[in-house]
């Protein structure tokens, strides 16, 4: 090996402590980036693959009557339609043995349906089930505590209880896990509908729109084909009342997943940037320590490009070693994250779907980014003239640094603190860099933790806006007075409101209104709700405009989600046409409200709802009430009593849930994001502390001579150790102040970004003391721990050793 490369290798070996720290910092970041890239790659491939595996319907036409065979044939012959099937969807309730009732969404199809559209993968049992057989979506099994062969009670909307056998489990990649939605998805045939005493006609026509290349991803094209089909069916005597066009080929939780991946990549990149800056700083420090050697090499003929190349190679060796170490664990971690994410999204994960590009990109960024970041430091270190290099005696504080030191001298601080401060300001550039690095880490960690708490607050704000304890929904309007009379008599019900609601669509120029709702009838759904005057239970916070007034004529208040999903770009004052129960009416947007945990909603006054929906004013489809008692058990018990009372009177309940169930569903939606933010906050914090440790270690190494002199003039080991530790604490303290301030705007911006993209709603600004306190303790304690080794090294210098240091 040529001497120049031998020197580089030996320098790395001699400074192996710092070399290891640099490698560890980069490896940690590269592993994080690799993991996040791998997880994002696997999940983005699998989320699509799982969703497409079921050949999801591009559109669903809700028909006025059950579809006839010739109408079905007409559908299949419509240009652009590549496949079609008929089904019925029934909202009911389900329980295992005497367990709690849970919401149930039943998808029914003909016994001879080939199960090509919106299909589920049968994982156990044999399709089709018998008339008394039901297939549960696989995530419903643990949610209900059911097993194949168990018997389950199904309470139909009209109140009839039917017992079914769990005939098998199916995986439906198009629906979210049951525990997240607090809803059981199940499949049966029309024979099962008959067993429940329900009509067996199938009034929903699911179509797949596409061409030779597969299903279409163009929502406008899909809507156009569906409209064309609707016209044909209308001419054939079965008009469509509305058309559902969910976002094409997109899983309902795609947005959340993208945000998880984006957050991880964002913080991973920040972490990599930090560790690269750290390496640049350390290499810069190494060059400063070797400045005389650089001078000597220049004196014997080394050119600046040669020296630059040598130290660039040194950086590349560090980065490459870190990358080699990091790639495999990063990939494994990525697979693990993808697996967790997959299970949270009800996906079957095949890690083999990871793009090979991930490894190439991870290697490229791991090996190149630190090297590129080190280039300025390398140029600065190697470009110095021979004379400057050989004559280097360190730097004397000048300008602002000198003034700051003068101020420090006058402060009533201990001698050790004053010496520590001088030591830090000796190289103000490095001090600034270390503080910045740790401040960025602190900002990242505090922001990550606050954002994760912000999700909790968002959920809590959604819960706080609901001052009721439980809700019961009915498929059809029920006379409000009788509901009131019945429910208010239930022990524990303390306050009750009856609301009116109906599915709505935004009316456009097309013949049939389009809703961007998924087949689960939840994600992307749109409802018109009429709360009672001065409602306490339906008063979401207003973002712009105003809430409803009793004397409003055509005012509507839309939720932010409704605007985003159904009327993008709509603002207060805009006119909007809405269709309810087949009737279209025109409205003025009076306000936009923020409501978390509810699908898109249009709030109108009760008289206006009567006019728009054609339903009687004395009806209700939603009951909300408070419960005497503060516990979850109290609420659950009261709701069971209400449901039983309604059942006893033959009033069919579509859904019944307490706020606790809602809370669990909302928590299930944000859980992935919260966990991801915790992980990335931890990684970024560790990289920051590693930075502090290596920076102070370099500083101590550079100043060995100074400590040596202190030892020779009588300084005790404890004093020197204290000085070094104080340096670390002062650095961490300065960074902590910066991070405390910077985390304010960073938290607000990140919360707005991630909230808007995941749930169309900025997270409430969250700046809790706990993350700040946690980071304060970690960074200050970390500073002490990080400096202990360097402090001990400095304190352990003997006078004789000190005198021999040149």
């Amino acid at each position, binding site marked *: 090996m*040529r*001497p*120049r490369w*031998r*020197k580089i290798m*030996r*320098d790395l070996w*001699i400074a192996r402590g710092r070399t290891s720290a640099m490698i560890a910092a980069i490896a940690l970041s590269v592993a994080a980036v690799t993991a996040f890239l791998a997880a994002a790659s696997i999940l983005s491939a699998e989320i699509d693959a799982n969703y497409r595996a079921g050949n999801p319907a591009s559109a669903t036409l809700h028909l006025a009557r059950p579809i006839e065979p010739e109408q079905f044939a007409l559908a299949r012959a419509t240009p652009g339609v590549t496949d079609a099937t008929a089904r019925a969807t029934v909202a009911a309730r389900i329980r295992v043995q005497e367990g709690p009732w849970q919401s149930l969404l039943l998808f029914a199809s003909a016994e001879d349906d080939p199960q090509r559209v919106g299909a589920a993968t049968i994982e156990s049992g044999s399709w089709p089930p018998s008339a008394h057989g039901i297939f549960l979506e696989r995530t419903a099994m643990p949610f209900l505590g059911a097993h194949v062969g168990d018997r389950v009670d199904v309470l139909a909307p009209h109140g009839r209880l039917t017992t079914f056998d769990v005939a098998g489990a199916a995986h439906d990649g198009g629906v979210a896990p049951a525990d997240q939605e607090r809803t059981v998805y199940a499949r049966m045939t029309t024979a099962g509908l008959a067993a429940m005493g329900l009509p067996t006609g199938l009034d929903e026509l699911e179509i797949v729109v596409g061409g030779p290349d597969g299903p279409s991803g163009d929502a406008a094209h899909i809507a156009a084909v569906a409209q064309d089909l609707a016209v044909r069916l209308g001419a054939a005597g079965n008009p469509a009342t509305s058309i559902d066009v969910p976002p094409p080929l997109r899983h309902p939780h795609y947005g959340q997943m993208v945000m998880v991946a984006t957050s991880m990549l964002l913080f991973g990149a920040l972490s990599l940037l930090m560790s690269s800056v750290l390496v640049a700083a350390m290499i810069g420090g190494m060059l400063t320590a070797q400045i*005389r*050697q650089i*001078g*000597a*090499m*220049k*004196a*014997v*003929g*080394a*050119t*600046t*490009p*040669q020296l630059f190349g040598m130290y660039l190679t040194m950086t590349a060796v560090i980065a490459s070693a870190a990358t080699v170490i990091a790639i495999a664990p990063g990939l494994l971690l990525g697979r693990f994250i993808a697996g967790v994410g997959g299970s949270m999204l009800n996906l079957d994960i095949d890690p083999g779907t990871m793009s090979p590009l991930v490894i190439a990109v991870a290697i490229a960024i791991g090996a190149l980014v630190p090297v590129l970041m080190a280039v300025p430091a390398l140029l600065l270190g190697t470009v110095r*003239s*021979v*004379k400057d290099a*050989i004559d280097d005696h360190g730097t004397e504080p000048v300008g602002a640094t000198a003034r700051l030191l003068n101020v420090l001298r006058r402060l009533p601080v201990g001698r050790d603190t004053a010496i520590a401060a001088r030591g830090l300001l000796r190289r103000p550039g490095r001090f600034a860099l270390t503080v910045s690095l740790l401040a960025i880490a602190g900002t990242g960690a505090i922001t990550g933790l606050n954002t994760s708490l912000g999700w909790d607050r968002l959920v809590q704000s959604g819960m706080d806006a609901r001052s009721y304890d439980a809700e019961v929904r009915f498929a059809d309007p029920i006379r409000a007075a009788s509901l009131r009379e019945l429910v208010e008599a239930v022990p524990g019900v303390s306050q009750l409101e009856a609301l009116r609601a109906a599915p709505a669509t935004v009316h456009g120029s097309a013949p049939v209104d389009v809703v961007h709702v998924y087949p689960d009838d939840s994600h992307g759904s749109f409802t018109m709700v009429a709360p009672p005057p001065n409602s306490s239970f339906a008063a979401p916070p207003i973002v712009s405009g105003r809430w409803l007034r009793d004397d409003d004529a055509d005012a509507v208040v839309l939720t932010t989600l409704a605007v985003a999903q159904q009327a993008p770009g709509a603002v207060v004052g805009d006119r909007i046409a809405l269709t309810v129960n087949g009737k279209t009416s025109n409205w003025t947007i009076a306000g936009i409200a923020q409501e978390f945990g509810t699908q898109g909603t249009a709030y109108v006054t009760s008289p206006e709802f009567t006019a728009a929906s054609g339903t009687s004013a004395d009806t209700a489809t939603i009951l909300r009430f408070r419960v005497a008692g503060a516990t979850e058990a109290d609420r659950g018990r009261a709701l069971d009593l209400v449901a039983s009372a309604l059942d006893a009177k033959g009033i069919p309940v579509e859904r019944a849930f307490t706020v606790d169930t809602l809370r669990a569903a909302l928590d299930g939606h944000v859980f992935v994001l919260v966990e991801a933010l915790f992980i990335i906050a931890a990684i970024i914090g560790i990289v920051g502390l590693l930075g502090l440790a290596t920076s102070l270690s370099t500083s101590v190494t550079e100043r060995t001579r100074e400590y040596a002199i202190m030892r020779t003039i009588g300084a005790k080991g404890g004093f020197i150790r204290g000085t070094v530790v104080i340096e670390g604490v002062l650095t961490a303290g300065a960074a902590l102040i910066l991070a405390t301030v910077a985390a304010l705007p960073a938290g607000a911006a990140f919360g707005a970004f991630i909230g808007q993209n995941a749930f169309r709603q900025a997270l409430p600004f969250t700046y809790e003391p706990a993350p700040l306190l946690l980071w304060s303790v970690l960074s200050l304690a970390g500073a002490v721990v990080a400096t202990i080794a360097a402090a001990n090294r400095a304190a352990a210098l003997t006078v004789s050793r000190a005198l021999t240091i*040149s």
Partner: protein
Amino acid sequence: MRSEDTMRPAAVIRARGLRKEYTVDGVAFPALAGIDLDVRPGEFAAVVGRSGSGKTTLLNLFAGIDTPSGGEVEIAGTRVDRLKGSALAAWRGRTIGLVFQFFQLLPTLTVVENVMLPIDLCGTTPVREQRERAMELLGLVGIADQAHKLPAALSGGQQQRAAVARALANDPPVILADEPTGNLDSATSGRILDLFAGLASDGRAVVMVTHERDVSTWASREVALLDGRITADRQLVRAVG
């Protein structure tokens, strides 16, 4: 022109009107105030003078380590004051052998690797022959048996010998030494000065800045500086060598 000049080889170091000023807080301080000096191959010139007389500045200007404020320096036919950057470094590596008071050996390279380094950097010898060349030079300075030790394991005198060997690595015509004995005891200093004298005898031009009171035993010429000017320039009769 005197006849003896025509008999002597042409100057390998040639300085004319060489000036250097340093500016401190806006005030210019002359370090060299117009130096005319020729040094020929085979000469061992000792530059003497008090601290601040301009000795090291003169040496730095010869080596291209510093740039003159005025005048010109020509070494081995090259105008040093016109060279810059990598060209200057490469030229220096091939033309000048530098020896410092504090040796400036690289602490993480063995002695032989330190000697190989200039050869490696300048590419003057094929890679396979570099070690052999370095060992040869270490033999010349008498420390071949120390070749595989790190500099820290050697005595001051041995380190300076290694530095001399490194200075000779690319067979330069000029050796410039800045206080090469300043950090050594008198016996060791003598042995180092013997080395320089030998190098001059071999036809190299050796310029040594020194505080040594009496270098007449080794040097062939003494140039005295005071306040940046040559106050005396005399040929010495070497007592030994």
